[in-house]
């Protein structure tokens, strides 16, 4: 082990170190430092060298691309995501409810994705928004992977040993959908870990449901979304939706697989889906729901 920890000077330096070392990439460090903790006054324990990228300016910021998509740098903190006018509402909700003030100043979206925790705050909205994870390796190697493929399974991501997550691209903006829903049931009112989070959106045009999406987190080993379930709603007239509510929630119930508190998680998921469908089916003027 050459270096225990390397502070990346710039992206190229980071990619170089990454290529030459089997290492742990650390951004906001809020998850990695906790799992490495050994006890009061002891050094954290890492079994590989650490590559620290938290202060790489190239990886910080929220910007709108010319094609209308929004790109968020991997080391952008939750606070920066919340404060940006370009952040989609549903993601802003999630970032704003991550931990509390101080954590939101450390935790990054790249870290939250890489952690691939079933209780992570940002994956839900990112699944809903069909976000794409952009990764890079030295010598210009780039890949863009849909989030649902990037998070392979519980705590496992599709990131090669020489790659770094650089950003996420979000193709859907608030105006693309007619209705949005986000609700996190946390362990408490603030500073909470998710017991269950549901986000959803729907596009209604000329009275017809053109798009309909549901994503649930903490309801299984990874965030749950199912196009098959969503297709039950798509194509219906908005006022036909109410009659399909229990069919949709029932179909979604088969998609989720909560391990702990299964009854609660299934019941609350069902109720939240039916609540959202009720709002959509009434074609009301309100756009955002919690």
């Amino acid at each position, binding site marked *: 082990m050459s270096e225990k920890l390397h502070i990346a000077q710039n992206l190229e330096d980071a990619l170089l170190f990454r290529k030459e070392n089997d290492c742990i990439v650390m951004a906001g460090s809020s998850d990695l*430092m906790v799992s490495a903790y050994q006890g009061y006054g002891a050094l954290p324990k890492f079994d590989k060298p650490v590559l620290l990228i938290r202060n790489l300016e190239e990886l910080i910021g929220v910007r709108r691309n010319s094609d209308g998509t929004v790109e968020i740098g991997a080391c952008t903190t939750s606070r920066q995501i919340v404060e940006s006018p370009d952040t989609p509402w549903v993601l802003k909700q999630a970032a704003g409810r991550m931990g509390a003030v101080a954590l939101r100043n450390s935790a990054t979206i790249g870290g939250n994705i890489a952690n691939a925790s079933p209780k992570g705050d940002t994956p839900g909205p990112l699944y809903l928004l069909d976000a794409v994870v952009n990764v890079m390796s030295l010598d210009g190697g780039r890949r863009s992977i849909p989030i649902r493929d990037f998070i392979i399974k519980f705590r496992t991501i599709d990131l090669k040993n020489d790659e770094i997550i650089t950003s996420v691209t979000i193709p859907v903006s608030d105006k693309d959908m007619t209705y949005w829903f986000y609700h996190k049931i946390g362990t408490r009112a603030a*500073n909470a870990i998710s017991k269950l989070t549901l986000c959803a959106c729907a596009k209604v045009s000329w009275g017809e449901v053109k798009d309909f999406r549901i994503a649930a987190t903490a309801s299984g080993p990874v965030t749950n979304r199912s196009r098959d379930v969503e297709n039950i709603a798509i194509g219906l007239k908005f006022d036909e939706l109410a009659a399909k509510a229990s069919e949709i929630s029932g179909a979604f119930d088969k998609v989720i697989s909560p391990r702990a508190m299964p009854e609660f998680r299934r019941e609350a998921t069902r109720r939240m889906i039916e609540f959202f469908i009720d709002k959509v089916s009434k074609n009301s003027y309100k756009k955002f729901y919690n």
Partner: protein
Amino acid sequence: MTIEFSLNCEHVSIDVDPTKRLLDVLRDDFGLTGVKEGCSEGECGACCVLLNGQLVTSCIIPIAGVHGQDVRTIEWVRTTRLGETIIQSYADGGAVQCGFCIPGMVMASYYLLSNNPNPTKKEIRKGISGNMCRCTGYDLIVESIYLAAKRVGELHKARG
């Protein structure tokens, strides 16, 4: 590894294991014991410091993360006008019981009032929601921060 940073407005340099927690460096190497360890996982806020002006929990940041950055602790905040006012208001308002969470709470109050000099009580509750207190039930802390805001406002008014 040699880590250099600005600590409470002074340039410091220290040869240290780069993974060592900022919290441990502040307490063990610089004797800044106003920074407390409560939970060791970024949850309770007792170890809050300002990193480049942003409130962070120092227990989940490796010292390497502050290389070239600006760190301020309660030991600096207590020397500022705003910090002093907050501390005095905490005392006058009965916000302090066992006191273990309080330096971190003062840091959160300082961060809140720096960014929002006239917070509502609801905003205050949100501002300190990452700082856990087991003694007070938070009411008198909220009131004390509100009092501090008023006092700072009066100071500014007096100065014209």
